[in-house]
């Protein structure tokens, strides 16, 4: 019987479908990282003086810092001088409409199934009634090449801009919040990002407004040897609601590329932000050559009373993932949620989880983490639940489940619980299991081939999290889980 013959299935496993590169002429910053690089980026983006000063301050700080080494990751030394920090497609003088966009870039998004034309819908939602629309900010290497539906959003009062545009057009709003949730000195990669961030998204939803459509940013790394430094800031004012999606892909290359992002969310009284990620950066090949280093700081400040932030992530890509989307629950009655599926295959490494910092009274948090490890990969959940002395009646529920698909992979759960108020109720549940031979044989004897059987069982395992995704991403995420694990049976 060959169904446990790993090599046979590795041979038929599909390639990373998003691994093509786009031929487009690009302008690069000079290689390496100095103050001049920072000035170059700031000048390229026509930034005001205060922004440049802010970047330079971060850069000087970064030079005094060291990369963190507390995670359970094996990160090869990174030569920060041997990379480009800015790459933008050479464009016509100004892009006034999509017609001015380089056709190669347009084709790239078509191939990826990302609708950068407003009449188009995301693949997978065609036929939905009523048709669901998603506004897209498309970030190609270091620049945003298109944002859709901005006029319609503006009529609702919602500001949806690339962060570069927002710095120029809404300096007061940006300046008020930038670096307030993730301070410049927060950690090595956040500091680096503060110095050289290139593009990302800015969203402001005013008081009482429910954002009329899903917002999304699609990050694409294309250029060789170039880092991408996403910076995203979302502010939901009193009583506002917004759902935001983020997707990421990159070409297959032998080198490692750095994606060091900072995402800051702010929710005022009674506001709610739902932030979903489907991370599918190139993971490297089966021997661990190439792939993206995804070193990301994401944090939400639930500043207002009864505010709520919900993080949902499906992490299938990247050679190394270092990422802990967190909530600072400052407002009384605020709620933080973290739903995560992290899949590692071959030589991938992931150290991911969350931090729930309870400062306000009656704050609640829920953590559901599903780790799936295959091949020779290593998958760690690391999570902190902290209850401040002032935080009365805190509730937390944490569930961490790990599923192992091979006998050479690792799954680890590292919970940190710090409670300084005796009224807190904290629950932590954790399980580790393997896909059983019984389940595989049962599914196969009903007609499913081994890959389909694994995909089905894994999707069942991750269901609680996938259910949290907006419909637009749920279908894609389900397929992605199956594809990411192809070749892993054995």
């Amino acid at each position, binding site marked *: 019987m060959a169904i446990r013959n790993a090599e046979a299935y590795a041979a038929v496993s599909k390639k990373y479908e998003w691994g093509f590169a786009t031929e487009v002429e690009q302008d690069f910053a000079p290689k390496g990282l100095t103050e001049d690089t920072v000035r170059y980026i700031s000048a390229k983006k026509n930034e005001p003086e205060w922004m440049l000063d802010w970047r330079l301050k971060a850069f000087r700080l970064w030079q005094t810092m060291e990369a963190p080494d507390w995670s359970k990751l094996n990160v090869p030394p990174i030569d920060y001088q041997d990379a480009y920090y800015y790459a933008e497609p050479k464009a016509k003088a100004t892009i006034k409409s999509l017609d001015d966009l380089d056709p190669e870039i347009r084709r790239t998004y078509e191939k990826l199934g990302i609708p950068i034309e407003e009449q188009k819908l995301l693949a997978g939602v065609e036929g939905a009634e009523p048709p669901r629309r998603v506004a897209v900010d498309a970030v190609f290497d270091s620049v945003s090449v298109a944002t859709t539906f901005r006029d319609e959003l503006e009529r609702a009062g919602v500001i949806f801009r690339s962060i570069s545009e927002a710095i120029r057009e809404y300096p007061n709003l940006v300046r008020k919040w930038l670096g307030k949730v993730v301070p410049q000195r927060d950690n090595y990669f956040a500091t680096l990002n503060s110095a050289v961030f290139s593009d990302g998204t800015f969203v402001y939803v005013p008081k009482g407004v429910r954002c009329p459509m899903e917002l999304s940013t699609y990050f694409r790394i294309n250029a060789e040897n170039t880092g991408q430094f996403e910076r995203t800031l979302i502010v939901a004012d009193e009583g506002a609601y917004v759902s935001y999606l983020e997707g990421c892909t990159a070409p297959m290359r032998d080198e490692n590329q750095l994606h060091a992002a900072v995402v800051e969310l702010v929710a005022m009284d009674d506001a709610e932000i739902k932030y979903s990620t489907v991370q599918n950066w190139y993971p490297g090949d089966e021997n661990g050559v190439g792939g993206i280093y995804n070193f990301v700081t994401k944090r939400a400040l639930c500043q207002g009373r009864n505010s709520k932030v919900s993080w949902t992530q499906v992490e299938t890509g990247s050679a190394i993932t270092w990422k802990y989307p967190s909530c600072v629950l400052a407002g009384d009655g605020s709620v933080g949620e973290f739903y995560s599926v992290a899949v590692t295959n071959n030589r991938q490494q992931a150290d991911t989880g969350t931090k729930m910092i309870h400062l306000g009274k009656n704050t609640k948090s829920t953590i559901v983490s599903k780790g799936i490890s295959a091949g020779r990969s290593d998958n760690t959940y690391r999570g902190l639940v902290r209850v401040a002395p002032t935080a009365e009646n805190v509730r937390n529920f944490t569930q961490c489940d790990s599923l192992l698909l091979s006998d050479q992979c690792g799954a680890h759960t590292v919970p940190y619980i710090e409670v300084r108020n005796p009224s807190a109720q904290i629950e932590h549940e954790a399980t580790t299991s393997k896909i059983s031979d019984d389940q595989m044989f049962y599914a196969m004897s009903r*007609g499913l081939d081994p890959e389909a059987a694994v995909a089905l069982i894994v999707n069942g395992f991750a269901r609680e999290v996938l259910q949290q995704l907006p419909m637009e991403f749920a279908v894609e995420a389900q397929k992605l889980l199956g594809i990411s694990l192809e070749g892993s049976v054995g």
Partner: protein
Amino acid sequence: MLKIENLHAEIDGKEILKGLSLSVNAGEVHAIMGPNGAGKSTLGYVLGGRPGYEVTQGSVTFDGQDLLELEPHERAAAGLFLGFQYPVEIPGVSNVQFLREALNAQRAGRDEKPLSGAEFLKVARAQADGLGLSQDMLKRPVNVGFSGGEKKRNEMVQMGIVDPKLAILDETDSGLDIDALRVVGDGINRIMRQSTKAVLLITHYQRLLDYVRPDFVHVLSDGRITRTGGPELAHELEREGYAGAIA
């Protein structure tokens, strides 16, 4: 339809089937009875293609095709259904989703068009009704939280949906009360009692055979078929035990 010749099979180096031969023609129901440890479940698993069961000698053909060459899912697509003694739980996957994917995978294996969600639901509902399984159970995760009887009925619902040529039912009667036994028995007759189909019933007891009347009864003992007879053999075994049939 099914032709087993001199089948030897082992698990972990221990020989369980020791030269078993059996022919099943379309339109027939065969019962395999025998004491514990005789190799009844092993026979089911070997025919279903379970990993770990190694065939060391002999042959099995199914509709003229070498069954042992096929992977479990290919056997399913070819029209073989294995009803499990202990149906397996798959958390988070609804019965409907599981069965639709399974059926469409089998159809794809036969170059048939997949059923749409609506077409599938119609089929699934009819089968569930036929076996007294509530619509609600179709939406629940596969076998999770099902009682023993519900799991067995669910197996029969699955059988009705995939509509196989040959069903190998491993102790489908165990864990069923009298009423459920009748429902399951009726289900087997309705789905499988056709001139183009055949059933291999693996059972300890005579009682299911009151509802699904076999054409042949075989006694399996120490990896071989030691006696074959008509339905009356089952009654004899029930009265006198296996000792006489084995000797």
